[in-house]
């Protein structure tokens, strides 16, 4: 039986498996994201949430599977996809200011090997304004608070004016004001018809912030509208420990010659 993936879906994942050094961390993910919705990617630590995002963006190699963005490959749709990496993935001591970082989102649009002209700097400033950081444009990024740094990252994604946003834990370690600002921004994106897939940790706020969930624990446990998929039973299946057998087989695939006790 082959699954049918609608070509209108912002992100279609067909039977994707991702392995680190031979050991699968995501098994046979099959998923179609709805259009114009906010989707929370939820699961315990080590469930492969970040891996899912990185693998569909081809930042890490996939073992298997086919990914489509709005019915086409990533290479064809790059400009329609915005990526917000984890805040801790970069060196915040790097000698650039907030505006420089936001302008990075425009590099593809500017074209390689061309300088960042005034027009683009103004676009970047407008994006900073949307996240309430216009006055910090010239601020060295190490002098920003964690929440402000996260908002700079969001502004950088906004400036890309993408149709699908993939965000890796934007709510991690931010203050209440930033959390509200991010939620506000996500809703703005949704009303503009955009889609966002957001790795999210706080189960309490899933129903409040998001329309749909994707429950993940090395495999896709459940997905769909919050009221249908975000059930106690599904959460128990997601968080009730990894499937012991999946883990063992994965271990065998990485160390084929080691006999497990």
């Amino acid at each position: 039986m082959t699954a049918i993936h609608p070509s209108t879906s912002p992100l279609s994942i067909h039977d994707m498996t991702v392995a680190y050094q031979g050991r699968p961390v995501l098994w046979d993910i099959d998923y179609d994201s709805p259009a114009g919705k906010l989707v929370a990617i939820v699961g315990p630590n080590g469930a492969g949430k970040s891996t899912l995002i990185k693998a569909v963006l081809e930042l890490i190699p996939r073992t298997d599977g086919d990914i489509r963005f709005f019915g086409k490959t990533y290479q064809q749709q790059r400009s329609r996809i915005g990526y917000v990496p984890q805040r801790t993935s970069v060196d915040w001591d790097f000698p650039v200011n907030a505006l420089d970082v936001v302008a990075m989102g425009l590099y593809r649009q500017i074209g390689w090997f061309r300088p960042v002209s005034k027009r683009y700097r103004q676009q970047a400033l407008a994006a900073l304004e949307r996240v309430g950081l216009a006055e910090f444009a010239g601020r060295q990024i190490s002098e920003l608070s964690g929440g402000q740094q996260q908002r700079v990252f969001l502004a950088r994604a906004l400036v890309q004016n993408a149709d699908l946003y993939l965000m890796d834990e934007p709510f991690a370690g931010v203050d209440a004001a930033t959390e509200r600002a991010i939620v506000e921004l996500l809703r703005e994106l949704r009303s503009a018809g955009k889609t966002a897939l957001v790795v999210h940790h706080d189960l309490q706020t899933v129903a409040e912030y998001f329309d749909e969930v994707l429950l993940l624990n090395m495999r896709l446990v459940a997905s769909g509208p919050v009221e249908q998929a975000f059930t106690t039973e599904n959460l128990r299946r997601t968080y009730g420990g990894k499937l012991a057998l999946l883990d063992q087989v994965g271990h065998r695939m990485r160390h084929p010659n080691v006999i497990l006790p």
Partner: protein
Amino acid sequence: MFSEFYNLLSGWFALDTWIVITAALAAMSCALPGAWLLLRRQSLLGDALSHSVLPGIVLAYLAMHWMEEHHWLSADSGIRHLVLFMGAAVSGVLSAMVTELIQRWGRLDRGAAMGVVFTSMFAVGLLLIRMFADKTHVDPGCVLYGSLETSAMIPLSSSIQIPRAVVINGAMLLINGILVIAFFKELRLSTFDPGLAAALGLRADWIQLALMAMTAATLVAAFESVGAILVIAMLIVPAATARLLTDRLSTMLVLSLLIAALSAVLGHVGALTLPSMVFSRLGYPDVRDASTAGMMAVAAGGLFVASILASPRHGAVRRVMDRIRLQVRIASEDILGKLYRRDEAVPVEDLTPSAIVTPVPLRTWIEWLARRRLERRGFITVTATMNQLTDKGREMAQSLVRSHRLWEAYMARHFELPGDHLHATAEQVEHFLSPELQTELAEELDQPSFDPHGKTIPGSSVK
């Protein structure tokens, strides 16, 4: 002392100028890739590369020799250098790639992988030299320490009197400059956020390899002039110094170029003057001259130390000054508070002589400075028998005491603490409450008139 300095420099010839120019160009061409390596936290890669290019150089040399023997290539020095650079660049890129693979497959950290690859490649290079020793003329001393003095003497050709090393290092600087300007955006993005770079379709891995090739070629160009060991200094120290001085990337690149050039000038001047001026005085009359390359590294190190101390934002001097300034401010505010409380407890007319004479004990020089500051600004008057608040001082003191007592009231409301625990924190906090915070605090406490100890909270007289 100065006349001796000028005497020693009066023997400055055209050769000295060429030495400085060669050294400056070599140092500047190294500083550019060095700045990027530093920002990528790969500073030691330069060190490693300087070793691993050896087999590439030797093989390129042998290939060239072989081609010349078969008359496929004329013994033209321009082409010879180009071939050597390509050999170095290829082996630099190769070693970076092998390091990457070993890191991935051997599950080693980067440092260990580098250690394995670069030492092995250096060993292979040495082995090649041994095997074909009669064909290659590699002087180990020259490779390690370089010889600016000699390289500045070899002209490009009999008709053009510019030293060859100037042309080579100048060309390298030009190429590096063009590359850094053209790829500035790409280098910045792939260094700061390789993940986003990849998501935007920029091949960060290619940029890394290009940077390796650029570094390797630059190293080889500079080897001849400053030597393998000192090249590392020129690669990293100017960039590290510049990083201390600024938080802007473009400024940092320009500064590292300037610092590199300055090290060259200071290095040569130092090499000419320091031996006879310093070492003979220290009892080492035998030290008559020093190598310019060595002195350049010393000069660069000196500039680095100077900027650690004097950097405007992160400098040690600045930090110490800031701390002293804060301590003086706190101490002077404490004096104001003490005088205010003294006046509050006992009217000035009733003060006993001893209380008049020693109301403000000066335990430390900080307190001495604090009292001087208060006096100078007209907050207190000091006579032999009396320290007295001026009107201005009283106003200031009143605001401080208000902050103190408001904070005690605030603590008493929100913390389950006995009364004697309140004072110490309030003593700290009073120095940091802005007028806005003070107003906010008073509002939250419904404008209290008494602190938890029953003392009056003075009104806010400071606007």
